[in-house]
């Protein structure tokens, strides 16, 4: 039992422990193996013995899973060569063993201090995710913190079969500060937290259909959502991509000129904007007529 602790306040290892069956987690390449980034060392930046990602095997509801959790406190969970190789290896192991893989994301994307190596690592992990999907091995991304899934990791998260989000979670490519610099404060005030979350937060992502579940900020709720998805996979077929193409075309046509996220919420069936803003994830999900 995890009590009342909030998932977004927990550390990566706490999150895994709270999510999986008690004492079932066995970490692979754990900190005693001292796999640290030579790039950061050369730059005189502190290293971390797990390079910012915890990976291993566990059970969830008695079912075997592979699981990874990124460490947002360490260079924003950004992906360097080792971090990325651990993820690639994990998804490759999942494909080989036909065991579902859960990725608890907390990352701004590529670790800039390591240059292109992190970028290639993300591309390699994407290929490994699709190896799983070709074998109908479920891949599930959990996005539950304000660091969220950004940059290359935002794109990578959309390669997984499913995305479980909380209202704290954010999913995107360019972050609000970058956009504010580019478009100006008038177009995007990055200090306006309501606007930031309505742009990239779990509620809007769920509403538009990019998140498959919107749940409470607790390990119990996230576990329930993940458990429901473990037996499923989202097949990539000619029919599925043609359907998705139509959905995304429709979304762009409907909202491409809509600057105001409240207008999107309204159009998607949210009647009480103020109430919906304050509602919890599951309450919001119940209020909103989620559309395609």
């Amino acid at each position, binding site marked *: 039992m995890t009590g009342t602790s909030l998932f977004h306040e927990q550390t990566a290892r706490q999150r895994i422990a709270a999510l999986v069956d008690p004492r079932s987690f066995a970490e692979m*390449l754990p900190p005693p193996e001292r796999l640290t980034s*030579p*790039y950061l060392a*050369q730059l005189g930046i502190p290293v971390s013995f797990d390079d910012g990602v915890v990976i291993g*095997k566990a059970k969830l509801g008695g079912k075997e899973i*592979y699981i990874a959790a990124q460490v947002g406190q360490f260079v924003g969970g950004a992906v360097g*060569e*080792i971090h*990325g*190789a*651990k993820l*690639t*290896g994990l998804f*490759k*192991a999942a494909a*080989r063993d036909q065991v579902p893989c859960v990725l608890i994301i907390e990352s701004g994307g590529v670790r*800039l*201090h390591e*240059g*292109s*190596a992190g*970028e290639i*690592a*993300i*591309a*390699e992990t*994407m*290929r*490994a995710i*699709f190896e799983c999907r*070709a074998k109908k091995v479920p891949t599930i991304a959990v996005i539950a913190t304000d660091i969220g*899934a950004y*940059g290359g990791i935002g*794109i990578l*998260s*959309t*390669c997984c079969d499913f995305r479980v989000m909380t209202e704290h979670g954010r*999913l*995107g*490519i*360019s972050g609000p500060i*970058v956009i504010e610099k580019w478009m100006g404060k008038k177009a*995007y005030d990055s200090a306006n937290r309501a606007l930031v979350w309505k*742009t*990239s937060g779990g509620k809007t992502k769920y509403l538009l259909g990019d998140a498959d579940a919107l749940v409470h900020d607790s390990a119990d709720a996230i576990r329930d959502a993940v458990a429901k998805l473990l037996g499923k996979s989202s097949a*990539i*077929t*000619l029919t599925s*991509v043609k359907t998705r*193409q139509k959905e*995304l*075309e429709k*979304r*762009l046509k409907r*909202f*491409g*000129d*809509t*600057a105001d996220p409240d207008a*999107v919420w309204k159009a998607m069936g949210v009647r009480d904007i103020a109430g919906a803003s304050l509602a919890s994830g599951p309450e919001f999900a119940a209020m909103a007529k989620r559309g395609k």
Partner: protein
Amino acid sequence: MKKPSARALFARLFGSSAKGISVEKSVLTGYAAAGGTKVCVIGTCDGTYIDNAAALRLAAHVIDCIEHHPKAPIVMLVDSAGQEPNRVAEMLGLASYFGHLLSCLELARRKGHKLITVATGQAVGGAFLCYGMFADRIYALDSASVGLMPVEAMSAVTKIPVAVLRKLSKTMPSLEFGAKPFALLGGVEEVWAAKDDVQAKLAKAIATASTEDNRAELGRKRGGRKLALDIRKKVLAASAR
């Protein structure tokens, strides 16, 4: 050296069959020929930004190829500065649009279409990740700007002085920007020079492509990315226990 026009570049790659490529708002789609076979072409030119609409147009063309030209190789040309930072694009889920494009390419791969990328201009950040880096085999012209970002940009974000990054990049090609250092990391199979017969090179690239991702092996062999393969193997060994 003057940058060749997009059209001149297409002609170099596809000869007279390049007329089958249409360009609209710097997004290109069409069919051409390479090595005597019909190929589907998607891509970007003029270093354009790639947005939700561009991703959809590329995806639609990949779907068209799967439906109407079974097993035709797909050649992806990359000359894009990345995604334009834009709030509405983000609100509408740009990442999902890119994910959709990747899913279409994955479907094509599974249905026997070979996927070849040629980085022709800018191949940086998200624009390279959202389709070009997903190919079976990736090539780059030596004039292309390939990599995460130039050291000046890296310095601006990380606050590490340019001089320090430049010095380190001598021994760490990952920090250097360009097609050649990217190839040392295994991110590019081969860099094509201006004098090369790129039509022949492209035909050979298609003929020899394999769906096995060999980038970590290449990076280790070439010495630019020494850790990735070993770490991956360690994970695969540890999980097999």
